Each structure stands twice: as structure tokens, then as C-alpha cells.
């Protein structure tokens, strides 16, 4: 599969919506769906101050590439960009961006949802949630 269809990055600096959008923008496409995951203040009634993301980078890139390839094959996407942040992300900061471009909107919507859902299930990235009174790894509370 041509590399110009897939853009996977794990970055320790603020993510750019423009970068993802511009990567997938293409005259063959009539629709781009963008998912942007941001940091919210309240989680299950607890007040969050910031998040810290870490990744097993080499494997995370492999798993994200697998997701991107499947999204292209399964939904007939033209191109996809997936960027994930590592390091500290403050409230309203961007943790993840997925941009999916296709000829028509339905494939872009479906592929974008597939990509973020599968990323959350499979990609070795972890977030530590910092609360007013402590911190813990999400999904790993005893």
C-alpha cells in the first residue's frame, strides 16, 4: 500500500489538526472526517488536572499502521492520518487526532469510528490521570 495514503505519528509536542487534515486532503475525495480526542476536566465525578501519556512506540506504530491499512481496505478510504500525543497534556489539550478521507462521507465517518475504537482497544499507549488528590493509570486501578 502506498505510503502516501497512511500517516502515523507519535509525538511529544502539541498535535496539529492542520497537519492531519492536509495529509488526507486530496482532489479525489469529497469528504474528510476528523476525530479529535481532548482532555476533559471531569471523569466519573473526579476532577482531572492533566493527563500523562506514554507509549511502547515501536509496537504502537505497528498497531496503528495495521489499523490504518484495515480502515483503507474495509471502508475504501482514500487516505488516513493518525497522530497520538505522548507526555503531559493539559485540559483541552489534544491527545489524539484521526483524519479519514474518502470519495463519499459514509466511508469516512465509519472508518474514523473504527480507527479510534480499535486504537483504544489495541494500541500500546497508556494514560495516567492526575486528579486533585492523586494519580492512577487509567484501566489499571486495582
Amino acid at each position, binding site marked *: 500500500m502506498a505510503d502516501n495514503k497512511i500517516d502515523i505519528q507519535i509525538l511529544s509536542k502539541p498535535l496539529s489538526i492542520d497537519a492531519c487534515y492536509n495529509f488526507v486532503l486530496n482532489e479525489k475525495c469529497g469528504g474528510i472526517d476528523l476525530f479529535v*480526542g481532548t482532555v476533559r476536566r471531569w471523569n466519573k465525578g473526579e476532577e482531572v488536572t492533566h493527563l500523562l*501519556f*506514554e*507509549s*511502547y512506540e*515501536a*509496537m*504502537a506504530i*505497528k498497531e496503528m499502521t495495521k489499523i490504518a491499512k484495515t480502515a483503507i481496505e474495509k471502508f475504501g478510504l482514500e487516505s488516513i492520518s493518525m497522530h*497520538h500525543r505522548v507526555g503531559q497534556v493539559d485540559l483541552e489539550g489534544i*491527545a*489524539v487526532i484521526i483524519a479519514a478521507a474518502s470519495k463519499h462521507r459514509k466511508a469516512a465517518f465509519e472508518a474514523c469510528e473504527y480507527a*479510534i475504537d480499535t*486504537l*483504544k*482497544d*489495541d*494500541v*500500546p*499507549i*497508556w*494514560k*495516567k490521570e492526575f486528579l486533585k488528590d492523586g494519580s492512577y*493509570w*487509567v*484501566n*489499571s486501578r*486495582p
Partner: protein
Amino acid sequence: MKVLCFGVAKDIVGGAELNIEGQHAQNVSELKEYLNKTFPKFLEYKSYMVAVNQAYANDEISISDSDEIALIPPVSGG
């Protein structure tokens, strides 16, 4: 055998890399058994996965010193 640790696994073993001396595990299942015995805190958490050479590995997969082995607690990206 060198084992990479992430997320809560890093906290449990006290570092990003764990060196296991001697022949304690020839497959993923034996590695988990060894870790649960050595660090009982693992038993308090939901199950974790093991990756061998950057791919998720079943319990039966054999492991050796030359493999890249990593402990993958429940992921939480996105």
C-alpha cells in the same frame, strides 16, 4: 532475559526494564507465572498482555533471551 515494562507494570516492578536472571520462563505463560510470584501486586490488577517482538503473544508462545519482550497492562490511549 530483559523485559520492557509500561504503565502500571513499570510501577510494580520499579523500573522501565526488568532483568530476569536464570532460566525462569520458556514461554509467555511461565513468564506470567514467574512475575505473579515475584511481584504479587500483579495479581491485584486486571490481566495484562505480553508482547513478543512487538506483537501480542498468546500464553503458548516460546520466548528466549534474544526476543524483545514487553509487559502490556490494559491500554488506555485515545
